[in-house]
């Protein structure tokens, strides 16, 4: 029973990070019909930027209460610029090309970013500095620490903020209008290129925060961390129904839970044959199952309805 509660807590925390990243995939897909496979690398760059600026500032003797927000702002700004640049340079020239072209380009951008990161930050694992005493709270036999609480609360707040923007602001209406009918949106006076740029920047800002969360949660960052994380967040977006914001959030949380519960019980289930290090397998089992049994995802509409 304690194990169950513990796995649920871990799953929700990890899932809220997946959800933040999945939103970036789904926003871009909703508006452009494009799977931005480079999005996972933006998360990695966000984590790396936070870590390097944090380490540098702590080295100069800047107090942590100042160093943390400054480096987070730096990472967010850097990732927004990166997201803007990726769209501008890699995707916009291909806006009217056959679908396969931007997809291949996305994979190319992803490889370029990984290699650049490896050149800048090296192949080593970077550890996240201890900024404050990370108190552990226990209840019902399970434990949760301060960092986990902060991650979950921040993720929920950011998602709520995004929903307000999308559903109750002029920018959000423009985003939804473009997602439905780009020509009609232009006729209303929407500067489509501008709104697409803003969408990439919003997604990238959330990716930066997710990068911070992952590295704070595991205490580590690595130039290769964006690949698996990106793939899992993409799985979460597909699970929820790609293009659907609520779907991405639901898919992220569910995937986090599935992975965590799977890892907790995989030993029992397989009679000790598999260990918890097989937990990554679950994400891809989920992806395959969704693609086979419900390609439109949990909250997604049938593709025919979108045409």
């Amino acid at each position, binding site marked *: 029973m304690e194990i169950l509660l513990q796995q649920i807590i871990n799953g929700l925390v990890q899932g809220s990070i997946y959800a933040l990243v999945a939103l970036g995939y789904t926003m871009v897909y909703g508006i452009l019909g494009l799977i931005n496979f480079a999005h996972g690398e933006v998360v990695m760059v966000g984590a790396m930027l936070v870590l390097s600026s944090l380490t540098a500032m702590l080295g100069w003797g800047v107090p942590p209460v100042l160093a943390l927000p400054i480096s987070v702002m730096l990472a967010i700004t850097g990732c927004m610029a990166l997201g803007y640049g990726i769209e501008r340079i890699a995707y916009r020239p291909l806006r009217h090309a056959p679908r396969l072209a931007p997809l291949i380009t996305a994979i190319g951008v992803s490889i370029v970013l990984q290699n650049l990161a490896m050149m800048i930050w090296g192949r080593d694992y970077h550890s996240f500095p201890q900024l404050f005493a990370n108190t552990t709270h226990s209840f019902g036999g399970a434990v949760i620490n301060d960092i986990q609480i902060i991650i979950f609360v921040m993720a929920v707040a950011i998602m709520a903020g995004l929903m307000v923007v999308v559903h109750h602001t002029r920018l959000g209406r423009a985003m939804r209008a473009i997602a439905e009918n780009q020509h009609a949106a232009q006729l209303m006076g929407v*500067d489509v290129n501008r709104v697409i740029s803003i969408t990439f920047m919003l997604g990238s800002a959330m990716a930066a925060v997710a990068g911070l969360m992952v590295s704070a949660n595991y205490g580590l960052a690595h130039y290769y961390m964006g690949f698996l994380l990106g793939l899992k967040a993409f799985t979460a977006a597909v699970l929820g129904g790609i293009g659907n914001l609520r779907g991405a959030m639901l898919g992220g949380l569910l995937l986090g839970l599935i992975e965590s519960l799977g890892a907790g019980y995989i030993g029992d289930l397989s009679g000790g044959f598999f260990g918890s290090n097989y937990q990554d397998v679950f994400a891809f089992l989920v992806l395959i199952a969704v693609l086979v049994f419900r390609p439109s995802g949990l909250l997604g509409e049938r593709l025919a309805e979108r045409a």
Partner: protein
Amino acid sequence: MSESKIPAPPSSAGAPRAGNPLLEVRDLQVVYGGIRAVKGIDLHIDRGELVALIGSNGAGKTTTLKALAGLVHPAGGQIRYEGGELHSIAAHRRAAMGIALVPEGRGVFARMTIAENLLMGAYSRSDKIEIATDLDRMYALFPRLAERKYQLAGTLSGGEQQMVAMARALMSRPRLLMLDEPSMGLAPLMVQKIFATIRDIAALGMSILLVEQNARLALQVAQRGYVMESGAITLSGSATELLGSDAVQRAYLGG
């Protein structure tokens, strides 16, 4: 110049047609991958005028409207609007300049509510209070929409969607309103309703370019008209002249 039987809107009643039209198109050409859809047409619209553009399927009417709205880029020719050249101006900027197009097939945002669709129409405006009064005006003009403000536009009937598309265009306070086949796919009663509204809007002094397959109906509300065939304008004149002409009778009015 034109002597129409329809009472002209007061604002344009005595307006001189002296070289200051709202819109003036010269030698407009549009090419789709080698196919010439519009082959050098001339047309103009005076302030406060309702002009019909009629023609059979594939004549190039929609293409002409898209070129005026900025959705397709002409291969040649000039488009002068309020005295300035539109050539290098993007579609979204033209919307802000007062050019509104109710597109063929209506193009309503199906997954947005009626209220949100209308707000999209006012996207380029920042005068919040005026936008609110205009919303009320639209609901007064289309009471059917007022009852369904928070319903998703995709769940509306074809006629109601046409109302949304028109109200949405009017929310931008256009100075040139272009309508592409507003009667398409609608039951006769709804067609009458839509055309009565077009007449009302025109009576307020708005300049309108109306594309229609239903030539009789269009020429009955318009002051002037153009007939388009395979990318070229083959006839033009006052609506009464066109309604009476043998060529139009034979080709479009089944007479």
